């Protein structure tokens, strides 16, 4: 039973990580929109993600829908607790998502939908970052329901995590553009990447320093044996990823900056996992507490065991179909 719940916690964690990385670079491109030179460059940037963004966003549905399915209590507690953030994120994603098609359908309001693509991406990124901060701080639960107020999530710490995620997504977007474009666009993305990387590492440092002091159990987990071993390992790996990122940018490598940024995201995520485990909603709701009955977990696990590998295969195939650099002459509309 507990094992099933932990397998599911791992699957949901994977889905959320997949979402953060994959839609992260989509949102990042939206966040970078004002930096891009002109309409044509923004068009190219958008075309690098046009065939894949929908699949990327589906991981968010799996994260939310999966939580509903296998940890209904966590879903029932977190959604009301983060209510305004969830609504803001959804509305941001509405503007971001429709912009892909609307920009091409509008003759006079292209600028408006470009602005909508940018604003929607920024709002979604900030809302997700704040939601992350609010979760790390912990959510008040009484019985089987959220017991806090409407604005509990709004704190300096959640503002910090929001900013960190915004910058992180922008860096992922820049890394993606370095990979998928050439010429001026690539050069511009490369110039953006360096300051973004410095800012991201500084923000990660600030969040990492603040986190252990938010709740005593985090402090214990990070500075006690054996979980404390990660306190040494994660920063070392982080430094390694940062070095790769810097080298990739300096050597004008196409893929390395993006992959190094993904590594930074994975490491941050790992760090969060260390702080959270064995809770799913800090401070009091554990993976086992929140899990649906074993019959529910088992039923969906059969499907997930078959379908998730298939999803990974055909999603990879779709990326492979649209491989290579996108230039101004490649239009997807």
């Amino acid at each position, binding site marked *: 039973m507990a094992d099933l719940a932990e397998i599911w916690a791992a699957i949901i964690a994977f889905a959320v990580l997949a979402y953060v990385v994959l839609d992260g670079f989509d949102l990042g491109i939206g966040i970078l929109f004002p930096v891009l030179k002109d309409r044509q460059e923004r068009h190219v940037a958008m075309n690098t993600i046009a065939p894949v963004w929908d699949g990327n966003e589906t991981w968010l549905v799996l994260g939310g829908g999966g939580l*509903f399915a296998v940890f209904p209590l966590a879903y029932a507690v977190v959604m009301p607790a983060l209510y305004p953030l969830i609504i803001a994120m959804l509305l941001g994603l509405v503007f971001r998502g429709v912009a892909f098609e609307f920009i091409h359908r509008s003759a006079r309001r292209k600028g408006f939908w470009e602005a909508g693509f940018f604003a929607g991406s920024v709002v979604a990124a900030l809302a997700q970052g704040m939601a992350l901060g609010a979760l790390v701080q912990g959510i008040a639960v009484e019985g089987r329901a959220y017991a806090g107020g409407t604005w509990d999530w709004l704190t300096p710490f959640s503002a910090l995590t929001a900013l960190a995620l915004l910058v992180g997504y922008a860096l992922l977007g820049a890394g993606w553009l370095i990979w998928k474009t050439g010429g001026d666009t690539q050069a511009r993305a490369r110039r953006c990447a360096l300051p973004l990387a410095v800012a991201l590492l500084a923000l990660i440092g600030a969040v990492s320093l603040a986190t252990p002091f938010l709740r005593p159990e985090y402090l214990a987990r990070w500075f006690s044996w054996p979980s404390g071993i990660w306190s040494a390992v994660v920063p070392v790996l982080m430094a390694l990823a940062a070095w790769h990122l810097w080298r990739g940018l300096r050597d004008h490598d196409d893929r390395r900056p993006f992959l190094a940024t993904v590594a930074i995201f994975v490491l941050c995520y790992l760090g969060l996992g260390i702080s959270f485990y064995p809770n799913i909603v800090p401070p009091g709701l554990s993976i086992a507490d929140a899990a649906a009955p074993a*019959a529910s977990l088992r039923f969906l696990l059969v499907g997930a065991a078959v379908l998730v590998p298939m999803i990974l295969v055909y999603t990879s195939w779709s990326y492979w179909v649209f491989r290579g650099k996108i230039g101004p002459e490649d239009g997807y509309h």
Partner: protein
Amino acid sequence: MFETFSALDLARFQFAFTISAHIIFPAFTIGLASFLAVLNALWLWRGDPVYLRLFDYWKTIFAVVFGMGVVSGIVMSYQFGTNWSVFSDKAGPIVGPLMGYEVLSAFFLEAGFLGVMLFGRQRVGEGVHMAATAIVAIGTLFSAFWILSVNSWMQTPTGYGVNAAGQFVPEDWLAVIFNPSFPYRLVHMVLAAYLTTAFMVGGVGAWHLIRSPDSRGAAIMFSMAMWMALAVTPLQIVAGDAHGLNTLKHQPAKIAAMEGHYEGFPQGGAPLILFGLPDDQAEVTRWKVEIPYLGSLILTHSLDVPLKGLKDFPPEDRPKSALIFWTFRIMVAVGFAMLGIGLWAAWARFRKRLYTARWLHLAAVAMAPSGFLAVLCGWITTEVGRQPFTVYGLLRTVDSASPLQAGAVGASLMAFVLVYIFVFGTGTLYVLRLMSLRPRDRIETEEIGPTRTAAPGPVTLEGQDG
């Protein structure tokens, strides 16, 4: 400003609004995905470029509508938790895994192959592109399968137990998935989606036949749509009737409310109230125009089977009649109007006047959005008719909502209403603009497939050849 409404009312209105806005898009794209697969197959089979042109024409419309369906759908997947957290906690162990299957078997499938379908013809070749197009269509049907299973379980729950925490827990998954109303609802909705698409396609075809009678593309669209109307509408009427019998068996209070019957008919012989004004306070239907015995004939296929009225149920268990009496009638009227168009077109075809019958074309244009009206009215009927429960007979709506302040729910409702009206209103205008472009019959340039230069220019006029 929200003092006059409770958080519960606002949450209900928010769900009704966001789901109504959402259902419009899948109702169209389920049928359109299949239509696109058929068009692409015809292009490959016959090699006639008019089919490729039609595919590209409807593909562009599909992309816009599908995009709106995706973003409004994500809202729905979070709506259960934000506004209905108690329902989520209690019904999650049953409803959640079914929706999980929808995500895993349908959403990823659609999203994974959509890019290839829209943009990949040249990159992957015709065969693989055809497969991707078919897979997207199959994905939309998988999606319908799972979400209708969820909805049907909420209407006619079976295969469950209740645990110590008060959660519904699965005992027999087959009984959960294939609950008693599911097969009827699935067939009724998929046919509704096909009809919705058929009448949109037919309306667009008719519009262009009126404006340019020599357009082959328009003629093909109109002809295909009218075949669909002729073949599917009778099936839909039969399916709707069977669905009604099923509802009478499992949710008799809903039927009584739909029919405006407050008094029961213990001896059968219920009249059909054609029109009237149900008054839920006074428990009487005023100003009614009725046909004797027809109600029993339709509902029980006999004259002497007893029928319950709303007064046979405790007041706290009754759905309100005033709204669904009318939404049900509108849906049925639209269905018969669709049948009329199908027969009219068959007659015109027989007389070899299908492409010149101006009045038929005008009627088809007027009926273009009829499927949306019928789908919305049908869903209002079945969902409002499920009240006052979320899980029929087991979990009351009033016990399902999140512990939220009315102000928070009201503010988010306002935000959804404003954003949806603006975004989806604009999207609808874009779709109408695409539909107003005349379909091209030939390939004018060497340009085949979806590519288009990104250079500035009148890209929105793509597809227009004067």
